[in-house]
Each structure stands twice: as structure tokens, then as C-alpha cells.
């Protein structure tokens, strides 16, 4: 037996052709699954664009809702959404990042911490309407904030906090421990190590995760139906204590209108909302990509 290549057949029935066919079939199956998701997104975007783009005029952005289609615009809803996002960011980012730093850098590895961790993961899956009811009881009624921007932002902050914490934790965990050891070995305290090395290294990940969480808040409707409840706001929100509406609510209100013309207004609002969310997601991707260099 000097031939290094084993003779075909013998005790093996290799069925190479069938195995290769199975491989090809599986690859196409996966390709189909990927294409399905992309196709659904493309069709959705195309439909939105087709219905909504012609609604986009300067007036659409500057006018208030109206009983007359040609005079209706999204100004208060857009301002409300921007206000809300800024407030949610101001509340959820410091708290979320702080909680993530605690869980990753300070918390003892014991049963209580594990319980806490499990709870946070579970909270991320709680239906948003539940947060709306909580916000109504806690912020609108108990804290006496009324149906204000602040109450809405506080509610949405609670909603996105688990997402912010979990993504910030992942970013902090990705900082190599050799970096921490280097700082500690030079006499840095834990705070100095976190401040000078862990947080700067984790910041791009924390930011991109937070932006993705905020884009979730931007599109959230259900809890705000409970908190704000208004779709016909004819003034600009000027302070966090003002009543407000947001784009998803405005869109919801227009689609619920029996008059078909108002559905076109909704399509225009959807274009604006989708653009905001896509821009935020793109920003998150860019930050992530830039930090890899």
C-alpha cells in the first residue's frame, strides 16, 4: 500500500454529490432568509416614500394641526419629539451609564448582583404599554407632573434604561482587563482607572448603544397615548412642564381620522419619523465604525 490516497469505495459510502447538494440548498435557504428581511424593509421604505414624499413641503414642517388638510402640519409634534428625545437622553444616559459602571466595575459577584442583572434583562422585555401605565401613576399623578413633556420623558427613560444599561455594560466589558491592570499597577485608584481608561475606551460603544436605544424611544407610541393623550396640539412646547404631542401620536391621530386626505398627512409624518430614526441609527453605526480605527 504505497498509494497515499485511499482507494474509493471500500468501507465508505461517501455520497459526496448528495452532501454537496445539501450544502448548496442550505446556502440558498439562508440567502433567501436574508433577502426576505431586506426586501421587506425596501418595500416598506418605498411605500412610505411613494405616499409621503409629496407631502413634504416647508409648510408641512411649520404648520400646526388643522381641520383643513392643506393647512395641517407637524410642527408641534416634531418639536415635541425633539424635546422628548433630548430629555430622555439627559435622563437615561447618565443613569444608564452609571448603573452599567456599577454593575461591571464595582458590584460584588454575588447572588444579589445576578438577580439585579436578570431583572434588568427582563425589564427590557416588558411591554411598553405597561411602562405607560406606570408612568401615568408615578409621574403624571403621584409626582404631579401632569401630562407634561417631563412625565413623558421620565416614562420613556424608564423604558429605554434597561437597553442603555445592557449595551453600556457590553461596551465596558469589552475594555481589555490588561488596560485596567496597567492603570492599577501604576497606583491609580478604581475611580482614576475608570475615569481615564475604562470610560474613554468604552465611550464609542456606550454612545452607539444609547443612540439605538433613543431611536427606540423616538418611535414609541403606546405609553405616550396614555401619558400625553393629545394629538391636536396647536402650540409649541416651551418648557418641560408643557403638554405635548410627538410624531408617532400625530401619525396615529391622522390615520385614525375617517377622512382619507388625512391619511396622506400621516404618510408624510411617517417619512419624517423614519428619517429621524434612520439618521440616528446611521450615526450609531458611524460612531462604532470610527472607533474601530
Amino acid at each position, binding site marked *: 500500500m504505497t498509494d497515499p490516497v485511499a482507494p474509493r469505495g471500500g468501507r465508505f459510502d461517501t455520497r459526496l454529490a448528495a452532501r454537496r447538494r445539501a450544502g448548496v440548498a442550505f446556502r440558498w435557504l439562508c440567502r433567501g432568509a436574508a433577502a426576505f428581511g431586506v426586501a421587506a424593509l425596501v418595500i416598506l421604505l418605498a411605500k412610505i416614500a411613494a405616499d409621503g414624499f409629496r407631502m413634504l413641503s416647508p409648510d408641512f414642517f411649520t404648520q400646526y394641526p388643522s381641520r383643513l388638510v392643506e393647512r395641517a402640519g407637524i410642527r408641534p409634534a416634531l418639536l415635541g419629539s425633539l424635546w422628548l428625545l433630548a430629555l430622555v437622553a439627559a435622563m437615561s444616559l447618565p443613569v444608564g451609564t452609571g448603573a452599567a459602571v456599577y454593575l461591571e466595575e464595582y458590584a460584588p459577584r454575588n447572588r444579589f448582583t445576578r438577580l439585579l442583572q436578570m431583572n434588568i434583562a427582563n425589564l427590557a422585555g416588558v411591554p411598553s404599554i405597561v411602562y405607560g401605565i406606570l408612568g401615568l401613576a408615578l409621574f403624571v399623578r403621584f409626582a404631579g407632573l401632569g401630562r407634561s413633556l417631563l412625565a413623558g420623558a421620565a416614562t420613556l427613560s424608564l423604558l429605554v434604561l434597561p437597553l442603555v444599561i445592557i449595551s453600556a455594560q457590553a461596551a465596558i466589558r469589552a475594555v*481589555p482587563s490588561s488596560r485596567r*491592570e*496597567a492603570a492599577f*499597577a*501604576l*497606583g*491609580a485608584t478604581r475611580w482614576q482607572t475608570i475615569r*481615564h481608561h475604562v470610560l474613554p475606551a468604552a465611550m464609542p460603544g456606550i454612545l452607539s448603544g444609547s443612540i439605538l436605544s433613543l431611536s427606540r424611544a423616538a418611535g414609541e407610541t403606546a405609553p405616550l397615548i396614555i401619558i400625553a393623550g393629545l394629538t391636536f396640539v396647536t402650540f409649541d412646547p416651551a418648557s418641560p412642564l408643557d403638554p405635548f404631542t410627538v410624531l408617532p401620536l400625530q401619525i396615529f391621530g391622522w390615520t385614525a381620522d375617517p377622512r382619507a386626505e388625512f391619511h396622506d398627512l400621516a404618510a408624510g409624518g411617517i417619512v419624517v419619523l423614519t428619517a429621524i430614526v434612520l439618521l440616528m441609527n446611521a450615526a450609531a453605526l458611524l460612531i462604532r465604525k470610527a472607533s474601530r480605527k
Partner: protein
Amino acid sequence: MILATERLGVVYGDTPVISDITLGIAAQRVTAFIGPSGCGKSTLLRCFNRMNDLRPDARISGQVLFHGQDLYGEGVEPADIRRRIGMVFQKPNPFPKSVFDNIAFGLRINGFRDDIGDRVEESLRAAALWDEVGHRLRSDARRLSRGQQQRLCIARALAIEPEVLLMDEPASALDPIATRRIEELIGELKQNYTIVVVTHNMQQAARISQTTAFLHMGELVEYNDTERLFTNPGDERTEAYITGRLG
């Protein structure tokens, strides 16, 4: 004896890593810890600057004495210990910052009062790195070669004027030429510093150290003058290890 251990034991979770180790480390000499992988030599080293504190599951028994003071005693500040007892790691771990800032960080956080620029230069000269990087202090430390990165880490440790330098296999991630430069550097540094080196390379221990401790399965088997330990080992396990029959 600048450093000493007294019946020192370390347990990670439920696993004893080292036990009942009593030894003294002489100042201004190079002491080497040798032994097979998992013998506890790195764990022992990390007791001297309380690096084991960073492992939540580590428990220490016995004493570690620095100038006769228990490092694990009441009121001892680990950050202060780590400034006075520096450490260099197996893999070069420069910060993703400039050469200058890598060294300046330790100076700043420890409240260095003199000119930081001068001290950066002194440290780089002490680590035999100034001639190579003195003209590019502002470039990213990660662009240096691995050997240069490791000498930068040594410079960074020296900058904050430690008395002791702990080195955990400082050359094991380096090529032979870079390794030789580190070994030469250790030879120079021992005039001013007490150096403790962990190495799995027996030839290296023989070349650079004056005293050698051989550890096996968490136990201090033999501790003697390097020359004596390598030419006339007193324990058969030491002999088995240095002749390559145990490892």
C-alpha cells in the same frame, strides 16, 4: 529583606493556588520565580503589589511584609503600595495614547510635583528607550514594536520612582533580540531597584537572577542562590525540573 512573605497562602474560589510560602527578597538584587505552568509563581508575584485584590474570588492568608509592614494590614492603601512596588506584565500593555502620555499618566495621578517632561525623558533613558523614541514622543505607543512597547511599560513603571519592580514573564511575548534587550536592561536596573522576575525560562533565570525560587504545585520547593540552585539542587523535584524531566 525589603520584601518577605510569612506562611502566605492564596485561594481562588475553592482552589488553593499557593500555600505556606515563607521567603525573603533582598534589596537591589534580581530574584527569579521559576516553575512549571500553574505552579503559582505569578500568583505569588501578584501578592507583592496586591494585584490579587482585583480578583473578587481571591483570598489571602498569612502575611506579606514590605519593610516589615504587613501589606494586607489595616489602613494600607493599595494604590500607594502599587506606586512603590511597580509591575510589568507578560504582554506589553501600553495605553492607547502617546508615548509621552503613557508615562505622564502615572506621574499625574500620583501628584508628581516636578517637571513632567523632564521625568518622561529620564524614565525613557532609564529604560534604554530614549534613543529610539525620544524624537516621537507624540506618536501612538501602539505603533512601537513589541519590544519597544515592553520597554515603554518598564519606563512607565520606573517614572513613579518605585523601590521594587515586579516583572511577570516580561519577555515571553518577545522575539529573542527584544528579549535580550530586556534582560540587559534588568541587569542595569538592579543597581537601583529590587527586581522580582517570574519566568518559565530557566536559562533566563540563570542569566539574570542572583536568587531563584522554585515553585511546584503551589509550594515553595527550593529557594537559594541561583548558581547553587542550578548546579547543585537540594530537592529532587528541582533537579527534575531543571534537567527537563518535570514540567
